[in-house]
């Protein structure tokens, strides 16, 4: 009987040898997280991924599975972020026709806004004495998650810290847009959508589609262009600033 008990105790470690516990856990909590999100009536301030991540963290503690082991197993899933990033080309290509009608405002706003999003946060963090790793983790915070993971790995940030900052940014930017729209008297759905996509990535895009289809289309476009611009320019900028703030 005690032998059986010992074996049950060792189950968590045994199952961590194969990736399937981690994969099953990730997908299960995804469904539960989404379900809870619906039950809470889709709060903007709490994206489903946060609920799911809390459930995974709780399960890991309960099963006494090490986070590093979980991550190793879940790596079999996260490797799909590669083709999933390429897949983002499809919505981008579908929305790109908006550029033809509005190429001037869009092609000026994206580089300026995407650059300033990085500069504002990195400068504030630097001023308050953040380490290079923290600044590198904050820099891609306005970019959609799959692209931001690629950027963070290139510039030497912490993916976990970046993900936390990215989600908080998405939620806050969405709230700030709701606050500023009436104060600045913005009544153009294209502007609201675009601002949501540029600053609040997927979280803002979901919100924009709640406003209208036009807002959603402009949010997708803003998100895609900001992602592409930041992904190309930020790693090169960090490389050029090689001896600068990012390397202490």
């Amino acid at each position, binding site marked *: 009987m005690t032998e059986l008990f010992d074996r049950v105790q060792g189950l968590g470690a045994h199952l961590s040898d194969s990736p399937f516990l981690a994969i099953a856990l*990730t997908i299960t909590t*995804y469904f539960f997280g989404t379900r809870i999100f619906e039950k809470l009536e889709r709060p903007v301030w709490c994206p*489903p991924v*946060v609920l*799911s*991540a*809390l459930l*995974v963290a709780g399960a890991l503690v309960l099963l006494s599975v090490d986070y590093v082991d979980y991550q190793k197993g*879940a*790596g079999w*899933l*996260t490797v*799909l*972020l590669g*083709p*999933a*990033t*390429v*897949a*983002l*080309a*499809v919505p981008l*290509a579908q929305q790109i026709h908006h550029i033809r*009608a*509005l190429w*001037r*405002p869009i092609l000026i*706003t994206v580089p*300026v806004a995407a650059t*300033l*999003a990085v500069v*504002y*946060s990195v400068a504030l*963090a630097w001023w*308050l004495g*953040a380490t290079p790793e923290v600044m590198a983790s*904050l820099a891609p*915070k306005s970019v959609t998650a799959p692209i931001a993971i*690629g950027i963070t790995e290139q510039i030497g940030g*912490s*993916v*976990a*810290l970046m*993900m*936390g*900052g990215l989600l*908080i940014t998405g939620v806050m*930017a969405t709230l700030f*847009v709701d606050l*500023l*729209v009436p104060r*600045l008297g913005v009544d*153009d759905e294209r*502007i609201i959508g675009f*601002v949501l996509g*540029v600053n609040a990535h997927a979280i803002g895009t979901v919100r924009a589609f709640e406003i209208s289809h036009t807002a959603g289309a402009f949010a997708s476009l803003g998100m895609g262009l900001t992602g*592409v611009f930041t*992904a190309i320019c930020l*790693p090169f900028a960090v*490389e050029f600033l090689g001896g600068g703030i990012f390397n202490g």
Partner: protein
Amino acid sequence: MLRGFLILTIFLVIGESLSFVLDWPVSGGILGMILMTLWLLTQSGAAGTDVGAASQQFISILVVLILPGVVGVFFLGGQFDGQWLAVGVALVFGTLASVATTMVLMMALLPKTLEKEQRD
């Protein structure tokens, strides 16, 4: 589905090769995405259907793919002790500033007359 997955994978491999050979600091997935966007713009309708279906599948499970990374937030421990003020200020005020800038910029640049063109 399989044909679409193959196209995605081929663009990913091309992107990865470019990134490595040119020694660019840009990840292969992003280069693959840019190349596929350009390719899709040259395709008229039918050719993009397979890749469209596969992409839809991937985009619908994106949350599952980023979830393991988000879990890491709860296991940071004391790794960034003493940095949280900087992180908090950068997130709150950095985001507020960039939302305001983007909005003002778009309002200044987007002529109201284009409204009609857009509706066509």
